[in-house]
């Protein structure tokens, strides 16, 4: 009876081991470091090697389409970063001036960012413009 439990244990260990292995492999392949524009410039050479995600607000009027590629600028707290989008997919519909853009890619030694993926989110109008009070009841 005990040996059956040992067999099940060994089976479980093999499964868990395999899953942990796949987890590590997937982590190496998929990880990307979330940085602010300010942190990017402080990272040194490290910044050019890792896959990085950087977020910012798309600067007004900065979006230029150059063939398949898109050049634009994002900003956060007065810091600016030029981004070149080289991905094959069209950018999301939410990507426009003033939207919050999340760019995934690599930081280049020339101080620009090459993004292969972009996610964008619109700021809600009312949350930004008006305060609220509790309804009286």
């Amino acid at each position: 009876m005990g040996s059956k439990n040992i067999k099940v244990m060994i089976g479980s260990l093999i499964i868990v081991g395999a899953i942990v292995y796949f987890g590590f492999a997937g982590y190496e392949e998929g990880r990307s470091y979330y940085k602010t524009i300010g942190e990017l410039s402080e990272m040194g050479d490290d910044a050019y090697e890792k896959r990085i995600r950087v977020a910012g607000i798309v600067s007004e009027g900065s979006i230029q389409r150059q063939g398949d590629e898109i050049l634009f600028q994002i900003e956060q707290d007065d810091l600016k970063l030029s981004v070149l989008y080289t991905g094959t997919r069209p950018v999301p519909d939410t990507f426009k001036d003033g939207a919050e853009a999340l760019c995934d890619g690599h930081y280049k030694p020339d101080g620009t960012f090459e993004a292969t993926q972009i996610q964008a989110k619109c700021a809600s109008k009312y949350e930004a413009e008006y305060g609220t009070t509790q309804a009286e009841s």
Partner: protein
Amino acid sequence: MAANFGNISLSVAFAFALYAVFALLLGTKVKRRDLIKSGENAVYAYFTFVTLSMFSLIHLLVSGNFQIEYVASVTNESMPIYYKIAALWGGQAGSLLFWTWIVSLYTAIVAYRNRHTRSDLVPTALGIMSLTALFFLVLNRFSESPFNELAIVHAGSAGPVPFAPQDGNGLNPLLQHPVMVIHPPILYLGYVGMVVPFSFAVAALITKQLSNAWITLVRRWTLIAWGLLGAGIILGGKWAYMELGWGGYWAWDPVENASLMPWLTATAFLHSVIVQEKKNMLRVWNMVLIISTYLLVIFGTFLTRSGIVSSVHAFAQSSIGIFFVSYIAITGAACLFLIFSRLEYLKSDSELDSIVSRESSFLFNNLVFLAACFAVLWGTIFPVISEAIQGEQITVGAPFFNKINIPIGLFILFLTGVGPLLAWRKTSVRSLNKNFFWPLVVALVAGVLLFLAGVRGFYALLSLYLCIFVGLTITSEFARGVRARMRAHGEQFHRAFTQLINKNKRRYGGYIVHFGVILIFLGFTGNAFNKETQGRIKAGESMTIGSYTLHCDNIEEGEDANFSYLIATITVSKGGKTLQVLRPEKRFYFASEQGTSEVALRSNLVEDLYVVFAGVSDDERAVIQVFLNPLVVWVWIGTIVMVLGTIITILPNPREVRLRRRIRNLETLLTAKGKI
């Protein structure tokens, strides 16, 4: 008016829920039937008031009262009425009220259906359910009220002045899609439905009624919640596929993960309760699974409502995080304490006999479902963990999730075929031979043929091989059963087939669910062969993908009240033969100043031709993104099969119906004689 009414209703509901918790739990403890009865009435009362509150919000949404912040943020004048109603779950505060309404709905139904049941389990479970309702009512009433009014502070004025904008912001255009009207309610019904089995489990722990009674009581509830949750998740995928325009239906987004995690643990629970019923094993484990499912439901709501993990479709950052974290911590700790203090009641009766047995296949099933859930959880909160430990946020992205979950998924698929055919305790070599020899051989031959036909990729081939193998084992189970019936009862084929299912709905319904799983995996496998291309075309020009030619006939512009649009008319042909005209559309919504793409789709059993109007290029051509996605349609078909199978497992067996009728007759008889 309606806002005040809604708010007051929430306060009254809150008071009734508070009373219900005390009356039900205390009433059971001191065995006061009248107290329990009044607690049950309080359940109906708070359900009524939450309903009133929800209807006043719907009234505000439909009538366009933009002085209410929530109404202004999710609707606008020109939206069609069904989207105005759907806006109830289109934003933070409204969706939380909807959540509360569903918990109270479930509580009221459980109370009503068990109104004659004389067991401590039911009132205790109702008390626990009311506790959940109470928690959400606190959020609705005191933190995230959907009835807040807009106000503006003018320079020089003493205080904020009420303010109503001319028009609202409008529902996020991405959410203005027919699936949006049904996906959230179905998902929520499934998600929140997990509260029922959880509450009965905790009630069993509290009352020490730890026989299998609670499992029998919640089996159907768990299946209903599980089926709805699964259907809701896939509907969400369908919505993403049709509306987001990136050619896929699943992106491992935190919001998607939040709904997947409780589904995984609930699936494990559904399987391992069978072991408890048959063998009285895994009793602590089942408690852990259903409690985890509940905590993951609350955690998922927290994840999507607090903005802790950035997600494209999570709602705004908000301060309700602390409520959730405290609630999860307290509930988790209380449940752990309950399990530990009841350990002696939860002992198993038997032990494992063999590694090749039904028991151990269930064990492995549980192990991998939990591993998948843990991997998804880990990947989802990894940015938060790495920030806490290393001081930098690291996201793991789709490669991580795929790397782990593809092998796990394939192992689950394998178990789907093998597990149900293994014998309890120990399986003989003879029965292994009988059940698996032919499916193995036929699948192997089919696998070789697929390879020779040019199908490549290890996982893709393995997946197709397993789909065929598992499909054959299930088919042969049906064939054996039908043949036996035809021989024993002299029935015709179709009669034998329907009777086979009818007489044992649990078993054969389960097989049908498994068959749906195979079809869904077939659809997933298609991902390995996806193609995509981008082209810039104007009227008269064409582009190609695979063997398809897409010819642009014209591009038209126009607008309606809600949005302006560009539509490309594209004729699809293959080998010179015209197949279909597709009209991908690009919209620009006025109220939210946001664009969306309406995908045009040519879908058949083999592949989807998926055409997106991505934008307009500098030289005034339409930018068209085309995807060729094989087998996608099987994901939707498989889901329908799964839902049908689930419905069959829920329906009562003929024997059960007869038994119930007899009990009812006996009751009426005894009541008539004044014995009860």
